[in-house]
């Protein structure tokens, strides 16, 4: 059954890729969507029909397909695991994915790579589902790199455009840098734990790494623990992988560039699903992280820093998709911050809500871009709500949701993270407060830049006249015809509406107990309890406080602070909206600081510090000097040259004069006779 979920999109991809040559766009779209649709339906069935019917502590369904690699003590299976965590993931991945597929039918219409696009999209769904459903790290790595590959292929969809190709390559390579850490982490884990499986499955005779990790004593919160080669090292290395995939400092640089891909790709891969794989992995490995406080601190700090920095950059961007990209990075930072403070459930909850409203925002921006005939710069937009009412309405929902306006989905998840950061006991003071402060600041900035985006796009004067022709000329092949902006077709609007509904409602699945006063059960937390409960419990009863009284005191304190914090964060959100509204309604084309506009020059620094030196060094030093010059020139050709030079010298012994030869014979005879005569008398 689980196999069917992953195989459905694979079948779709294979069918489109190998046999779909003669199919029309309609058929292609239908096949792709139905492949994902089947996966979605199956996902709902297995989660609600099967998983939930099991008793809470047994909610773990293994599906062993075949043994993949089995060498000595190392074993990795192609086997799937459905538990609440992966269940949540497959639900929203297939659901959101399905609607993005639907959206893409309209968005990609007339594209020459239509079939290719959908084949890759389906392939991506397959990889993502493998990533999520894998029951061991190695199979997860298959999905992990698989999604990276699909991301590469889809970013480079417009392969005639160099910037798209560069972005694609950058995405893959930067991800590989992360994967490097991930792979080392897995290896270290195997070295220590002797297994790469998550959980013990006695029917197959395998032991679980997390079961092992829980048995270990926790590492101390020291810098040396990071390099000690223990749990902390494993956790940090795995997190390096997460920074790559989930675009965290310092590896976030690929994600903004990845916007070169078609917008549905950005929505699906670079907002809703793939980029949250890091959060999934960290949550999945919560058993390890919770034993490694130093790693937790790193995760939290990186997450918070990324959230803040990305948010500041987002303010300075003009490209609508770039704003959303930095926004995504920022939100991902939030999620990691949640993981870092031990609030794994909150992190996953934010992943969940974020996938709705960020997908919505991206699709909305896609709709705008289509409506604007492939113009992405917000300077050239404005006043679009008149032309694109549905797009405007749905995007507004997303805007408010991400800004954290109360009662929308973003509010609940973000609030949960902020309050948990504030009250976390896993990190020493002053980190909880500091993290909260950063989170709050980020929330403010989020509200501001999102307001800027909406205002610049939908309100204000219409700045697009006169740009049309130029735009039409420049985006050859995509400008079907120039004209005033217009609303997108039904296939695009419908997903927007669906996602907008989701963005409003899904938050209610995880209303924090403190807010609801226990009247509405936190379904989400309960659902995930079998997976993350243990880690959360450890986080709450942190070893930082072994005093039981302290724990009790903190627990009672939390309730009251949560409400206070919820109020504060609501106010922050509203303040941000207000600031943004008033400022950008008046100064729509306010020039943001150059530093922000140029993204702190990080790309330039990377280029100058790493890319160019490596290229130049490889060319001029390694290749030209060492390879061609030293080894080949000096050693290989040099010895050949020396041999022939020596030969050429020696041949002058052969002067051609018989008398000289005689002299040489005499000389040789002298030496040999002398040697013998001296030898005998020794």
């Amino acid at each position, binding site marked *: 059954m689980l196999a069917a979920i992953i195989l459905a999109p694979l079948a779709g991809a294979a069918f489109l890729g190998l046999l779909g040559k003669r199919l029309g766009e309609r058929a292609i779209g239908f096949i792709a969507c139905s492949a994902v649709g089947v996966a979605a339906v199956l996902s709902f069935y297995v989660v609600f029909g099967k998983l939930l019917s099991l008793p809470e502590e047994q909610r773990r369904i293994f599906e062993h397909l075949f043994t993949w690699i089995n060498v000595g003590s190392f074993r990795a299976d192609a086997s799937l695991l459905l538990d609440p965590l992966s269940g949540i993931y497959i639900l929203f991945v297939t659901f959101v994915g399905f609607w993005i597929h639907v959206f893409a039918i309209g968005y990609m219409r007339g594209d020459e790579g239509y079939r290719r696009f959908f084949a890759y999209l389906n392939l991506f769904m397959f990889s993502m589902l493998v990533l999520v459903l894998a029951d061991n790290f190695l199979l997860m790595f298959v999905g992990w790199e698989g999604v990276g590959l699909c991301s590469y292929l889809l970013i480079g969809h417009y392969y005639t455009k160099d910037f798209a190709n560069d972005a694609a390559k950058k995405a893959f390579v930067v991800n590989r840098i992360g994967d490097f850490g991930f792979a080392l982490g897995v290896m270290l884990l195997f070295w220590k734990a002797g297994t790469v499986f998550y959980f013990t499955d006695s029917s197959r005779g395998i032991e679980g790494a997390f079961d092992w990790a829980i048995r270990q004593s926790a590492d101390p919160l020291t810098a040396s623990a990071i390099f000690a080669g223990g749990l902390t090292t494993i956790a940090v290395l795995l997190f390096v992988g997460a920074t790559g995939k989930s675009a965290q400092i310092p590896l976030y640089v690929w994600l903004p560039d990845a916007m070169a891909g078609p917008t549905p790709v950005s929505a699906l891969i670079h907002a809703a699903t793939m980029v949250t794989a890091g959060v999934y992995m960290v949550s999945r490995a919560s058993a390890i992280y919770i034993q490694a406080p130093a790693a937790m601190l790193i995760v939290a700090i990186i997450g918070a820093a990324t959230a803040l920095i990305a948010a500041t950059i987002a303010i300075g961007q003009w490209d609508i998709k770039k704003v959303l990209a930095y926004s995504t990075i920022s939100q991902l930072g939030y999620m990691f911050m949640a993981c870092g403070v031990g609030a794994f459930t909150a992190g996953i909850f934010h992943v969940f809500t974020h996938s709705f409203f960020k997908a919505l925002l991206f699709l909305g921006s896609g709709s705008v871009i289509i409506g604007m005939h492939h113009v992405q710069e917000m300077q050239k937009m404005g006043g679009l709500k008149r032309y694109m009412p549905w797009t405007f309405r749905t995007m507004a929902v997303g805007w408010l949701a991400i800004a954290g306006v109360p009662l929308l989905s973003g509010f609940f998840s973000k609030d949960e993270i902020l309050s948990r950061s504030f009250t976390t006991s896993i990190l020493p003071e002053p980190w909880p407060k500091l993290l909260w402060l950063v989170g709050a600041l980020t929330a403010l900035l989020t509200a501001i830049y999102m307001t800027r985006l909406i205002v610049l796009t939908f309100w204000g004067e219409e700045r697009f006249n006169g740009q049309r022709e130029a735009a039409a000329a420049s985006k050859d092949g995509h400008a079907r015809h120039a004209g005033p902006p217009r609303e997108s077709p039904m296939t695009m609007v419908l997903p927007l509406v669906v996602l907008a509904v989701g963005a409003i409602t899904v938050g209610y699945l995880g209303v924090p107990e403190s807010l609801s006063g226990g009247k509405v059960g936190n379904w989400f937390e309960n659902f995930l309890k079998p997976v993350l409960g243990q880690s959360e419990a450890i986080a709450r009863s942190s070893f930082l406080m072994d005093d039981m009284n302290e724990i009790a005191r903190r627990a009672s304190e939390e309730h009251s602070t949560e409400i206070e914090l919820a109020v504060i964060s609501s106010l922050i959100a509203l303040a941000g909206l207000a600031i943004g509204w008033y400022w950008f309604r008046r100064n729509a084309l306010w020039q943001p600081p150059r530093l922000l506009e140029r993204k702190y020059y990080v790309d330039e620094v990377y280029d100058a510090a790493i890319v160019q030196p490596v290229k130049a060094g490889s060319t001029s030093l390694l290749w030209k000097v060492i390879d061609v010059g030293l080894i080949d020139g000096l050693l290989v050709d040099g010895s050949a040259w020396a041999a022939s030079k020596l030969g050429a010298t020696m041949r002058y012994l052969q*002067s051609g*004069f018989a*008398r*000289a030869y005689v*002299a040489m014979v*005499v*000389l040789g005879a*002298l030496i040999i*006779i*002398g040697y013998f*005569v001296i030898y005998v*008398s020794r």
Partner: protein
Amino acid sequence: MEKVLFIIFAVLAVGGALNILLQRNPLYSALSLIGTLASLSALYVMLRAQFIAAIQIVVYAGAIMVLFVFVIMLLNVPKEQPVIDKQKWLRYLAVPFASVILAEAFYVLRLIPSVTPPRVEGDQAVGTTWSIGTGLFTDYLLPFEVTSVLILMAVVGAMVLARREGD
């Protein structure tokens, strides 16, 4: 007495040998060699190797050297030929090389035990024609016969090389 004779003939032999090197004209060199050969023949007599002494004169000095002289006269190199000496440096090697060889030789010889020749008189003595003849047709039968092959082959070879074109 014997020593005096030895010294006389030795000096003659060595002098003849050196004279070969000192002469420009190969003819004089050849004549000088004949002198050396004769001195050696005298030494052979002193060594009571009468047969060898005889054929030294008859065969060597008589036949072989005559052949040399004959060839020298035949070829009769024109005198006015320019002296071409492309390897002058070789002559500077002469003395060092010679002294080293001699040093080695005398290094070896100084250790030679003294030995007295057996006093056998008459036909049984080693150097007599009888003893050489007996030796040649008993122990040295095969070498002696093989020599004939050698001579025959030399004749053939010399003929092939020396005859004029078109013969």
